[in-house]
């Protein structure tokens, strides 16, 4: 990291000199991307700013928005019940993400290894649930987990749970349904990464004496690292914001930030409060991709060729300084 500083000053001057040329060079791209850019500004950026702004407005007595600026709402967020909900939101989402990834990596491996026909069929199976409404699927889970439902009865007859025990309306139910809901979002990016994976590397590992399991863990998993990052983001971010699942299959002890926002916005009509919670969630959701981005940068997954060469040179210099003298 230290050695990079020297290089970066040199590259900066090159960048400055050619900035006009670069705009000219990218003019066509700017024109092409303008519509989607405008769309995102109008329907994403501006509303986000509005939400942030709204969270600093006072609350009107009859519900609605007052006309003075205040920090009052943000102060109430430190209300004792919120840290618990935030904590629950985080662990439910993280555990759901982890389970999704653990299930998806072998899935992705199997799909990528399947013959072309079967592969298309399997990918189709993963996309299939999207053809029915998300709500219907969550309600279907409600039926399954219901005390009179299939899974409940099965578990009782197998002796896994007592007849009095509830499968629904708790964090466990939320977790199961979240994993179910977000699994395709984990499998698809992992499959995309696995499809590009060079399976001759597995053969190479076997050839060098590795057992199939070790080859899978030591070669395949690092090989689809980029896919694991994107799958994590694809699951973790929507999971953090989920409110339908805890609302339908969760109970009072499994509320998440999303359900709280809903409560504040619709039944309570306390929009500044809902805005403050949304802003909080927004910042929270930005955190994992930011960490992942830092990670990817450090791991040189997205680096350009020149950067790679530079890194190689600096690494070489470092090595020759530290080790070269000793070895020769």
């Amino acid at each position: 990291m230290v050695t990079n500083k020297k290089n970066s000053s040199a590259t900066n001057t090159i960048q400055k000199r050619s900035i006009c040329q670069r705009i000219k060079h990218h003019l066509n791209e700017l024109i092409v991307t303008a519509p989607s850019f405008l769309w995102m500004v109008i329907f994403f950026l501006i509303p986000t700013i509005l939400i942030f702004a709204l969270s600093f407005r006072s609350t009107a007595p009859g519900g609605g928005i007052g006309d003075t600026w205040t920090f009052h709402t943000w102060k109430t967020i430190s209300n004792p019940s919120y840290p618990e909900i935030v904590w629950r939101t985080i662990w439910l989402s993280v555990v759901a993400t982890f389970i999704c990834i653990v299930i998806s990596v072998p899935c992705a491996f199997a799909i990528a290894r399947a013959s072309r026909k079967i592969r298309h069929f399997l990918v189709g199976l993963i996309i299939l649930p999207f053809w029915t409404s998300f709500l219907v699927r969550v309600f279907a889970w409600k039926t399954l987990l219901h005390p009179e439902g299939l899974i409940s009865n099965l578990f009782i007859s197998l002796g896994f749970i007592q007849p009095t025990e509830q499968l629904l309306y708790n964090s466990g139910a939320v977790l199961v349904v979240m994993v179910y809901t977000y699994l395709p979002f984990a499998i698809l990016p992992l499959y995309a990464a696995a499809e590009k994976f060079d399976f001759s590397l597995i053969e190479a590992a076997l050839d060098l004496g590795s057992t199939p399991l070790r080859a899978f863990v030591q070669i395949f998993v690092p090989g689809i690292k980029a896919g694991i990052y994107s799958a994590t983001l694809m699951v973790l971010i929507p999971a953090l914001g989920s409110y339908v699942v805890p609302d339908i299959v969760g109970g009072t002890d499994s509320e998440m930030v999303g359900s709280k926002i809903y409560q504040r916005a619709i039944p309570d009509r306390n929009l500044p409060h809902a805005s403050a919670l949304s802003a909080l969630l927004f910042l929270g959701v930005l955190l994992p991709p930011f960490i992942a981005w830092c990670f990817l940068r450090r791991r040189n997954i997205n680096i350009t060729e020149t950067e790679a060469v530079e890194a190689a040179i600096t690494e070489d210099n470092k090595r020759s300084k530290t080790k070269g003298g000793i070895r020769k």
Partner: protein
Amino acid sequence: MSDFLLFDGITKRFGNLTAVDNVTVGVEKGEFFSLLGPSGCGKTTLLRMLAGFEKPDTGRIFLDGKDITNLPPNKRRVNTVFQNYALFPHLNVRENIAFGLKLAGRPKKEIEREVDAMLELIQMGDHELKRPSQISGGQKQRVAIARALVNHPQVLLLDEPLAALDLKLRQHMQIELDLIHDEVGITFLYVTHDQGEAMSLSDRIAVMNKGKIEQIDNPAKIYESPRSSFVAAFIGDTNFFDGVVDKSIDKEYSRIKFTDFEPIICFNDKKIRPGSPVHLSVRPEKIQISHEHPENPDGKLNIFRAKAEDVVYQGSHTRFWVRIGEYRISVFQSHNRFLLDQRPIKWGDTVWLYWHADDGYMLEQYQETDEDLLILPPENIGDMDEEIEEESDSDTEEVNAEDNASDANGVAEDGNEQEK
């Protein structure tokens, strides 16, 4: 059974395609043995069966006296250098080389020592901390070899290891491979479609075609006395004449008659009886081309009047296409300042073409099972470093073999008009 490595009656089918057809090959310890053949001839399949990635349908594989047919890849003491190198992209050079030793659970110090020795052997000590993406093709190749060799395999398998390198690098790596082989003394099993590579590196070559072994011999014998017309056509370039042995002119020489060509005198070491149909193979570099009529003191020269149709300058030599009747004959002439014939031969010239009876080579026609073989792509010896089109994906290679074969025929028909 004294062979160190023995493929005993191996057959392997993929669907309808027989990739390897009842092949029996023995390899001696320490030998540099090549499997040579066109794409889809089954050479890679044979290699993969030895590595353990494929199971033969019938037959056994013995290594050092032990039957290894059913062992999984990680239980076999063979290591492979893959065509695409298959270096682990998330590990650096040192970690790549140490991979096998770490799996074997060797003590750390020993691993360090072994890897250092390997890095020295491949002269990559300065690059040990680089990732595979940061080193060149030739360096990757060397790392791949080191990664396999460091485990001291009983046999080192090399699957077209030089195919992805450019010409100069390939020539350089050929020499390095040879040096490494001399140094480590491990048995090398080398798979290639490049006859130049096979000839210059190998102690012995097995020429394969359509899943069968055509000939196993040392390089010189393969070139000078091919056992089938496929071998003659595949190794180097050649001109074929189809005729019938007419009569013996003395103890050793016979006259061959043709329906569409003047009789040719040829050395008949196989004592082929008159009346037998034969292919006569004459290598382009054995044919002389001249403006002057040559002297023919012992009467053993075959001399023809021909017309030069194409003259292709190729640096070290010139390639002529000359026409005699319906035959188009390929001739190489190396550039020699002291050529008697100072007047260069140009397009359209009428010239003398001659070769000694000893330079022709008769192949009995009954050995020919398939006339198509004759027009398989002859990689001519002068351009031996130019690659023929190669299916890079070894998984699909055998499956696509039929496609390839038809492609190759298409190419051959264009470039190989010495066949009428």
